[in-house]
């Protein structure tokens, strides 16, 4: 049984959520500076 599908699903899901969170912090800092 190939568990790679499970790991890939978790990696992409949490990567996308984490990336969105980091992008929000970046946007906030950029707006605060301008």
């Amino acid at each position, binding site marked *: *049984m*190939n*568990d790679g*599908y*499970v790991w*890939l*699903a*978790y990696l*992409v*899901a949490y990567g*996308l*959520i984490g990336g*969105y*969170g980091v992008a*929000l*912090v970046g*946007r*906030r800092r950029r*707006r*605060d500076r*301008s």
Partner: protein
Amino acid sequence: MNTQPSRTRSLLLPTMFGLTIAGVGAGLWTALTSSPDVEQGNFVRILYVHAPSAWLAFLAFGVTALGSIGWLVRRKLGWDRLAEASAELGVMFTAIALFSGSLWGKPVWGAYWDWADARLASTALMFFVYLGYLALRRATPDPVARARRSAVLGLVAVIQVPLVYFSVNLWRTLHQGMTVRPDGVQLGDSSMVTALLVNLAAFTLLYVTLLLARIRIGPAEAAVPDVRPAGSAVTAPKLGESR
């Protein structure tokens, strides 16, 4: 001077962030340590990311509709910011639900995707309609016109949410039936039920925290003058004029 509201406001996001980290940690722990399914084995663990993402997409688009109604009734841009922030999150969670679902489909159904399946096709349509919602917002520089147009679309588009949710009952195609039903959660054992419920709660916390953080960017973004849309410098040729 009473500083209580601002102190509460400044503590809200860090508190929610802490709760979310704890919730996501508990969610991951229960998801990865729960029993494997008798038929699907470890592939059932994709459910603990897939179902909460789909649930959050429904909630997020419902909140977008709520913000749209709020703007149409009260004409306060705060409602519009709520609608925008929630739509952005809804698109992200729909993308996760679609991607994790297709990764689950390959080993279990033998195919990543099937356009003939009602749940898959209606979810994809919902994803593209809300991408269009975000595109409409970007294409309208005037904040009031943007709020009005997107409120109308936000209200029309939300019709898809019950359609996607009940699609598994309305059309019996490839996608499995509802897991959480009024008569109980349709899973093998209690550790799987716990994993699903903990992850549903963790993703809901995640949504609320990201929503609060996104809404706070709203006023700061509004303060920055709008860049003129692409193509606005191009003027129509004056036809019929003598040279």
